[in-house]
């Protein structure tokens, strides 16, 4: 049981200030599988934060809980690719084996099983997190073994190592994935070029952000460098939450040195002394390997004081963990989370380049962007600019999953067609591709010659492939559930609108939908696009609208032809009463008027 000694040990790992709140809570959760009430009180006192605010943070992040969630907490990844690979049946099977209701903790407090948003294992799903550790390639056999292990109360650390193997699945390499070990070379080149020289090369390269928005990286770094402030910060965004995206996971596994090199080059360019890698909680298993690489870099004089012997060039990187909140991939929400708060996107302007972490100038870039920046610092911008298209220079790392023979990581020069990717990954009979996850675009077979670049299909590079067997309504339904689950709740349109959308899609799925529901979807889409606070809300209706536009019959097939149909079924509502009384005669039924 919790004791004060435990807490002091946990608190000692982090600076004793409000910014550490989320990190301390993550540590407590890892030890106790929840945040005991008395520890929440002590944390509030230790960090001088109102208790209600501590509770507010616990309530915001889905991996933190104030009530025990079982000594074994299993979270099935609920991405559409997991579902296509049979995750729902496997979860039911596991719950059956454990005599457990999904979402509830077993009465003996041993285990709970529920779903979570995409955990980034789409190329090797179905997958789940067992006390935070990913298990891939779930099969009925694995589920049986897991049930036995839980019943035997075997610690997760003792489960078969094979369960936890995460494959990289690199299928096509280009400039970035072909780059060799990067231990100081790009940094030395950056030091030779100087801060201005580095930024000039980024501008010559026309590098644009790889998180999907495509903001020019050189312009961002220059704006940050020139913004007035007491301190500057570099933040690596490894909160790869867009369902279907997992390329940063592979970059963090295979090219972490390149990432840290890029972040250090950025520190040099903008004059930062502190950097953060914001690592999504789902990738917690990468924390120790990443810490080890940081330690090696410190030992090699690539981090710390007087980097590579340059007096005054002091910089270090701390890793902050997320705790299950897609919205923290949005840069200003990420900064709020870094500050230990609820991950609510800020009002902008001002933007993070002038008012970021602790209101100081901050560069937040995607993992892949920093990797590309390191390569540009090393080899210069002109060679990079020569690759790709007019407005999208360089290469893009794609996450490919769904219905294809070879899901995994593909790096192409920008401008590659969707058709080319489909051919290379062995996709046949494809009817649609979701590009860029639920907030991206769904395209049909007549659009497969469209190109992946900022001029055409701009995204963070996730392709989820649906072949002819798939019902795209199921995908749209899954995406609306995702947005409702991940809305931060700050603004009215997104908080209420995503819940309403989920409601409407459930009504259609249950066979009670009418044209009225389709009209309401269109109405909600307009409201969200026009008035939501951030990109999550703006795009929450996109997949449904795209699929309605391109695959309307899959929706209409489910509709009743009436103009209005109540969401409840009067006769169905009597089913329980009939079961209890043992009656099933005509008088125990209500016949709906035709």
């Amino acid at each position, binding site marked *: 049981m919790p004791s004060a000694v435990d807490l002091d040990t946990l608190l000692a790992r982090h600076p004793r200030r409000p910014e550490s709140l989320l990190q301390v809570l993550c540590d407590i959760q890892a030890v106790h599988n929840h945040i005991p009430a008395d520890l929440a009180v002590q944390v509030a006192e230790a960090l001088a934060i109102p208790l209600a605010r501590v509770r*507010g943070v616990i*309530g915001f992040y889905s991996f933190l809980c104030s009530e025990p969630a079982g000594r074994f907490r299993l979270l099935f990844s609920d991405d559409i690719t997991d579902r296509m690979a049979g995750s729902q049946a496997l979860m039911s099977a596991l719950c059956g084996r454990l005599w457990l209701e999904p979402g509830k903790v077993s009465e003996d407090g041993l285990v709970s099983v529920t779903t979570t948003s995409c955990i980034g294992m789409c190329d090797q799903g179905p997958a789940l997190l067992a006390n935070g550790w990913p298990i891939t390639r779930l099969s009925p056999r694995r589920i049986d073994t897991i049930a036995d292990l839980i019943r035997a109360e075997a610690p997760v650390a003792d489960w078969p190592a094979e369960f936890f193997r995460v494959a990289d699945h690199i299928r096509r390499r280009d400039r970035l994935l072909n780059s060799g070990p990067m231990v100081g070379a790009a940094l030395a080149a950056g030091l030779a070029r100087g801060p201005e020289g580095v930024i000039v090369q980024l501008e010559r390269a026309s590098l644009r952000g790889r998180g999907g928005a495509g903001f020019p990286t050189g312009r961002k770094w220059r704006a940050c460098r020139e913004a007035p402030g007491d301190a500057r910060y570099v933040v690596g965004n490894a909160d790869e939450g867009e369902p279907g995206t997992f390329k940063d996971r592979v970059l963090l596994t295979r090219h972490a040195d390149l990432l840290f090199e890029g972040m250090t080059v950025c520190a040099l360019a903008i004059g930062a002394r502190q950097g953060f890698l914001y690592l999504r909680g789902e990738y917690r298993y990468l924390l120790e390997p990443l810490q080890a690489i940081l330690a090696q870099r410190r030992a090699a004089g690539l981090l710390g004081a007087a980097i590579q012997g340059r007096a005054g060039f002091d910089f270090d990187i701390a890793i902050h963990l997320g705790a299950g909140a897609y919205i923290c991939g949005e840069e200003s929400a990420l900064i709020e989370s870094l500050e230990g708060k609820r991950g609510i996107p800020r009002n902008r302007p001002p933007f993070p380049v002038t008012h970021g972490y602790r209101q100081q100038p901050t560069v937040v870039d995607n993992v892949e962007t920093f990797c590309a920046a390191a390569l540009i610092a090393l080899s210069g911008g002109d060679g990079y600019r020569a690759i790709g298209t007019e407005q999208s220079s360089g290469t893009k790392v794609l996450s490919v999953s769904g219905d294809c023979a070879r899901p995994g990581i593909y790096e192409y020069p920008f401008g590659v067609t969707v058709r080319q990717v489909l051919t290379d990954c062995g996709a046949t009979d494809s009817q649609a591709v979701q590009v860029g996850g639920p907030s991206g675009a769904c395209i049909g077979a007549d659009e497969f010659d469209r190109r992946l670049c900022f001029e055409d299909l701009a995204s963070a590079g996730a392709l989820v492939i649906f072949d002819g067997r798939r019902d795209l309504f199921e995908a749209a339904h899954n995406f609306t559930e995702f947005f409702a689950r991940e809305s*931060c709740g700050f*603004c009215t*349109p997104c908080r209420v609108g*995503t819940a309403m959308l989920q*409601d409407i899609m459930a009504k259609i799925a249950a066979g009670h939908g009418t044209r009225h529901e389709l009209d309401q979807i269109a109405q*909600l889409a307009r409201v969200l696009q026009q008035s939501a606070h951030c990109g999550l809300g703006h795009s929450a209706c996109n997949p449904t609208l795209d699929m309605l536009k391109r695959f309307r019959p899959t929706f209409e097939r489910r509709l009743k032809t009436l103009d209005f149909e109540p969401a409840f079924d009067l006769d169905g509502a009597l089913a329980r009463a009939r079961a209890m009384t043992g009656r099933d005669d005509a008088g125990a039924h209500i016949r709906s008027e035709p």
Partner: protein
Amino acid sequence: MNSFTLDGTAIPFAPGQTVLQAALEAGRYIPHLCYHPEFKPHGSCKLCTVQANGRPAAACTLPAQAGLVIVSDSEEINGLRRTLVQMLFAEGNHFCPSCEKSGNCLLQALGYDLGVVTAGFRHFFPDRPVDASHPDIWLDFNRCILCELCVRASCEVDGKCVFALSGRGIDKHLVVNSLSGRLADSAIGLDDKAVSVCPVGAILKKRVGFAVPIGQRRFDIAPISAQALADAPRPAAIGDGA
């Protein structure tokens, strides 16, 4: 002085003002709910959404800029606002006829003023227990619209931080800063700004409910579009502030 246009009229503004602040100061109403002249703009309710140079933006957080063309009073934008009000009604449990805030409630007043005449969407009917623990203050989560005015007022004005938010998405909710989580055990006081600032009937003083009869309350007398201007800091020359 610099100016932008609001529905075709030039609105002067001072540096640092937002579109909503400048409009109110100039005697022009833009519907709003979570904005309060005494607090930093929040930008969460989105009722003040306008078209700014053709792009939608929240007027309360949009910095005023010379030459901006703002469209606020259009059928399209008012339609959007009606939907937002319907969303707020659908999300909570708002029964105006039995609510003692009726007539003084900003949400209700906005609904009337914008012409919200139907529910529009299926209501959620959430289960939200009332906190009646405090001897003098009634806390009814059913009516909370999550504008965070009490959160801001309690921290910034009262210096107590009695309220905070927890949960996320549709489960977002107000929490009270006390060990038990009950209002009675918090540091709140009857004269706190956090109590008086609530725009709806979520935080009410006990035992004064119907001191002013229905029919004689603030928005029974004149619609919110006429009265909101009185709350805005304005130069004496423009209006009498009554």
